[in-house]
């Protein structure tokens, strides 16, 4: 036992000190969080300045309404969001009107302008012309305003009471409420579900790839320079294996710990929505199970492969299976009962990441939790046994990579 601890300590300390570890520890979450929240931040960011928007209304019916409606939008500080100016000049032909309006954009006098046209009676065609592809939020507002005006106009034409129209035009907004096991209501936002699962899956994958490669690389190093013989003449292969898994798992836990702290700090800083951490205990459970499972798997593989290229290939492919849930995430979020998700919930390679996704989508039945956790625990146990057998013989077999047949005979002989 003392030797196992010495080995674990060595594996942990020597790896914690490496620059790559420190970099991956800090950079990985920053990159991932950056990737996932920056687009959301950017696209939902409210305008902070007043924009000058032109309107070129060829029909001549709409300008006033548009101006009134758009100028109702206010910035946070109470300033109007838009200043609307009329670009229509009677003296110009239609073509000239456009040219002169376009010129306004070039000269940056206006952000852009709405071109309202009525090619055939009763049809309203609008263009938003601007120097850059328009802000998504602006377009949504313009669309809403135009639709409202058009509908109002049509309704007025058919003689409906204006008050009635106003009341009809009040928007109903739908808020999604997820009912949780405890009966309490939770606000569900697709993006948050998706990204929080996504982030945890990516973190798990990065960690598995990273530490798997580190483990395999150190095994290959020890094997290629025969260090393994010195080690095996000082302790049993099982002690060595256990020590390595222990050391590496503590390394993984350290990483998780730092990342969780980092995440909590971001929640505190209101950068990350606290919803991400709603299911943190379950997430951590599957995270750790997944990490330990893959680590034991890599020990077996590490004792078979002989070159670093081989190692890299295999570790990368294996870790990619963790990515699978990302592919099925969309249908899964839309319908958590989809069959494929259920199937993947019973395969040890995919359980961790699928469950990371499932716990965030909908409350997972207790039975499913018990079944998946049991499958993981049993797989880890079997994997340790198998890897130990392969390890015992594999670490001392030099030369070419053994065939599948040989490996099976090792497992049987153990």
């Amino acid at each position, binding site marked *: 036992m*003392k030797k196992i601890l010495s080995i674990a300590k060595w594996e942990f300390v*020597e790896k914690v000190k490496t620059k790559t570890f420190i970099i991956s520890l800090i950079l990985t979450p920053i990159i991932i969080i950056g990737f996932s929240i920056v687009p959301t931040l950017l696209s939902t960011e409210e305008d902070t300045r007043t924009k000058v928007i032109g309107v070129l209304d060829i029909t001549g019916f709409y300008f006033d309404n548009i101006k009134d409606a758009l100028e109702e939008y206010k910035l946070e500080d109470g300033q109007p969001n838009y200043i609307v100016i009329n670009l229509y000049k009677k003296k110009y032909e239609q073509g000239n009107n456009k040219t002169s309006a376009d010129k306004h954009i070039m000269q940056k006098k206006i952000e852009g302008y709405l071109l309202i046209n009525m090619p055939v009676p009763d049809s309203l065609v609008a263009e938003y012309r601007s120097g850059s592809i328009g802000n998504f939020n602006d377009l949504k507002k313009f669309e809403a305003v135009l639709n409202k005006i058009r509908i109002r106009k049509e309704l007025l034409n058919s003689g409906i009471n204006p008050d009635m129209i106003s009341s009809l035009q009040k928007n109903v907004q739908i808020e999604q409420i997820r009912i949780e096991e405890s009966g309490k209501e939770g606000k569900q936002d697709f993006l948050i579900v998706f990204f929080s699962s996504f982030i945890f899956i990516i973190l798990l994958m990065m960690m598995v790839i990273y530490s798997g490669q580190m483990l395999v690389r150190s095994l290959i*190093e020890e094997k290629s320079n*025969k260090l393994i*013989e010195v080690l095996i003449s000082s302790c049993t292969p099982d002690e060595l294996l256990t020590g390595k898994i222990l050391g590496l798992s503590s390394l993984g836990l350290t990483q998780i710990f730092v990342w969780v702290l980092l995440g909590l700090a971001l929640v505190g800083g209101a950068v990350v929505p606290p919803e991400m951490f709603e299911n943190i205990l379950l997430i951590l459970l599957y995270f750790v199970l997944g990490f330990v499972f893959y680590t034991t798997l890599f020990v077996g593989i590490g004792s078979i492969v002989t070159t670093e290229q081989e190692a890299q290939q295999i570790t990368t492919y294996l870790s990619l299976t963790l990515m699978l849930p990302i592919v099925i995430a969309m249908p899964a979020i839309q319908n958590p009962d989809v069959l494929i998700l259920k199937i993947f919930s019973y395969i040890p390679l995919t359980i961790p990441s699928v469950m990371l996704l499932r716990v965030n989508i909908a409350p997972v039945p207790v039975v499913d939790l018990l079944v998946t956790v049991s499958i993981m625990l049993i797989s880890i146990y079997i994997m340790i046994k198998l890897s130990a057998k392969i390890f015992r013989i594999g670490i001392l077999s030099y030369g070419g990579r053994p065939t599948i047949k040989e490996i099976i005979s090792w497992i049987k002989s153990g």
Partner: protein
Amino acid sequence: MLLVKNLTKKFKNSVAVNNLSFNVVPGKIFGLLGPNGAGKTTTIRTVLNIIKPTSGTIIFNGKPITNQFFNQIGYLPEERGLYRRSKVIDVLKYFAELKNLSSTKAIKTADNWLKRLKIEHYRNKRIEELSKGNQQKIQFITAVFHDPDLLILDEPFTGFDPINQQEIKELILSFVSSGKIIILSTHQMDTAEKLCDEILLMNNGKEVTSGDLGEIKKRFGGNNIKLQYSGNGEFLKSFPGVFQYESYSNYAELQLNDDVSPSEFLHNIVDKIEIKHFSVIEPTLNKIFIDLIKEHPI
């Protein structure tokens, strides 16, 4: 005392060690000799309990060798390897802990050894920053710093310059006087000749000869002379009474037929060539080795 009895190790399609028996007593260096691929390393690995023998027994100090002897064994493998990116003292401490030393004792012992081998200034350097010879010294320390009862050295001198070789040789000899059981495996016969008291010469997994080095030399002694001369000595090859003739750059070694005495031979050739040096010699282990391996072809 280490007793190896009827040791056999078979691999999938080869027999690496075939019914090998030998004893190693404390206070003497036991040389395990043989050409590359003779089965020396496999023999060592079974003695170290790294691999299980197919059959045969290994008894160490009266007990079959098991994992409980880990801490009493020191092993210097033929191929050297250390954690290149780690610090000297960290590596030494780790290996000492694996030999069951407490961490404070590990550091103390490691420091003593660094001092003893005059490399204490590398204590906090990374292994990869050290020269090859100094890396070898570190590896040597890992084999001996826990004061093992059984010390197995596989090619201990490769990679050392003559000065360091001398230093290591003296160290090994000091272990002899402290009563350790020492197995030295090598294919460098001159090294073995200088250090070993007893040898086992093996080839193709089998024993070729074994025993006290002096006796083996006597047994294979025969009539050997060393001759230095000027002029053409080619005729000696077919000269009556000459069994074997080997010429080197500035001298020749001859083995005479058993019925020819060296002085008689000298008498016969003294007129035919200008002799500068003439001596009766014991055969070198190297020669015995080559002759024996030739006699026991694969």
